[in-house]
């Protein structure tokens, strides 16, 4: 597998913005993968493994966030992260309300 760089811009469509649970899910996915990921919002950025950094980046509904992944599974990680910004959690505890 080769080192790839993936940059993908997502728009936050979760009405509650990127909240604690989103941040946690992001950090978990990134922690399990093999790529280095950072999130960039305008002049702010966060290491995607750090919940507090992700949260204090403060991404609200309608804002653009760039996912920058570097590593062998960069594209797969970015794919896995994308739905989180829409409030879709890929586990059995799907948002119900």
């Amino acid at each position: 597998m080769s080192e790839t760089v993936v940059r993908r811009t997502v728009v936050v469509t979760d009405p509650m913005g990127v909240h604690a649970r989103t941040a946690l899910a992001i950090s978990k996915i990134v922690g399990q993968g093999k790529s280095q990921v950072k999130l960039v919002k305008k002049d702010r950025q966060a290491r995607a493994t750090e919940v507090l950094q992700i949260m204090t980046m403060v991404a609200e509904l309608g804002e653009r966030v760039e996912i920058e992944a570097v590593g062998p599974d960069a594209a797969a990680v970015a794919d896995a992260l994308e739905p989180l910004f829409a409030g879709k959690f890929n586990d059995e505890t799907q948002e119900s309300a």
Partner: protein
Amino acid sequence: MQKLQGIAVSPGAVIGEALVMDTEGFRIPRRFVARDAVVDELERFNKAVTAAAVEIAHHRETVSAELGEKYGAIFEAHLQMLQDSRLRGEVEELIRQRHYSPEYAVSHVLRRYAQVFQRLESSYLAERANDIFDIEKRLLRHLLGRRREGISHLTSPVLVLAHNLTPSETSNLDRRFVRGFVTEVGGPGSHTAIVAEALEIPAVVGTGPFLTDVSGGETVIIDGDQGLVILQPDEETLARYRREAEEKRIQATKLEPLRDLPAETRDGVRIELLGNIEFPYEVDHCVDRGADGVGLYRTEFLYLGAEIEPTEEIHYQAYTRVVQAMGNKPVVIRTFDLGADKMPNMPHPEDNRNPCLGLRSIRLALRNLPVFRTQLRAILRASVLGKVHVMFPLVSTLLELRQAKMVLADVMEDLQEHNLPFDRNMPVGMMVETPAAAMMADRFVEEVDFLSIGTNDLIQYTLAVDRTNKDVVGLYNPVDPAVLKLVAMAIEAADRKPVPISMCGQMSGSPLYTILLLGMGLRRFSVTPSAIPEVKNLCRRVTIPECRTVAERVMTMENARDVKNYLKEEVKKYVEEVAE
């Protein structure tokens, strides 16, 4: 340095240590650690993080098991935040480099994070600050352990900074050590304002959100004259406030000898200076200042924050304390002056779009006779202990006054039947605080033993201004000619009868207006006890003819600004400096 503008509700300025009251009511002293203790303190911090982490993990498991993974996830997120490398790095840096105590460092760093959220417009994300506060609390609990100090057990002087203070919080505060209040919300009539005035400590309310900008233990200045709160003051500002405090102290010392001298004008006219009080303990402030009595004993505190309606005995105990402390000097007890929303166990009125013009005060009393009668019984029972007067608030028609007097007569009969002693000749009076009462004062004086002008409401109702509304507060002015005309009407009507008339609003306590009021014929002032020395000082320097000249001139003026400027000049002729 950061300055916040709020509403000044209790005068004076004070420099002190901040007690931030949102962290479960415990305080973080600003403490520095010795250089050689840094290693131990870092270890203490790390232990606290570990302990907090174990606790959160435990919570996560319990919550996940009971409510599902989705809810447990929030604690998982807290756990991650707690162990965030940057956060820990920042705290450790403050301990290592700046020798902050771990408590102070934690509070400082986490508040900066919380600020990021609190500044946001969006409420969803702004509430996220609570996640951070939650972590802060948890860490502090582990760090402080048993040493955490509750607000009811203070050991050193503090300035209390809070979002809002509830009656139960203020009643639990240790009065010996609280030196000032700031609340983010609230207006001049708020509970904090009343308590601060009663404690005679500076207070500023309605500053808007700022608590995340300050950590407990930091030095803060509260300027209750200007309505300013100064965070992280610079040396120059501190020096200025210290100098002013010193000057005030000297000034107060100068006025001390006046305590035992009568408030008598240079031409020998005796002026009566009485105290306004809210809480029974304030009667001591009146005695200390040599007050001629209690001119306004507000009884709202008995109801505010009470779970159930106060019993007759609770009323009686409070009144007894005040009446006995005043001995043979008069005590004017005002019956409750509240809306139904502030009364325990009273259904909220259906129609309350306009509370100031709605069912409150005497109107509410006359609709809830059992509550009213309980209070009147206690007042009457206390009347044999001293010189008790009863006063009805917010009377606007003669019929209301007559109804209230009928209820009183009825309660008297009841007491007599039970052979309970009371003063049958207890003077009965009313507040003049609606334009209606002032305009009908000539009729009211036929049916009361005394009048008392309540300027706060009279100004509000005359000028149609809510003084808590910052857009129109500029119109709120005690010396607006319209207000002065009504005050003059009331004084003239009382003098003609004659019945005694006093003034008990904030206006009467400001030396700026003393000359004018004396000139208008007022001889009885009821003021916040701390204002007695200054008002007395001025009374003793003027003559009545001098005051009359001033009043006559004022009555020809057409707007409040001119009156105020003129009075400022006049007062300067007698005393060096006068606060508004």
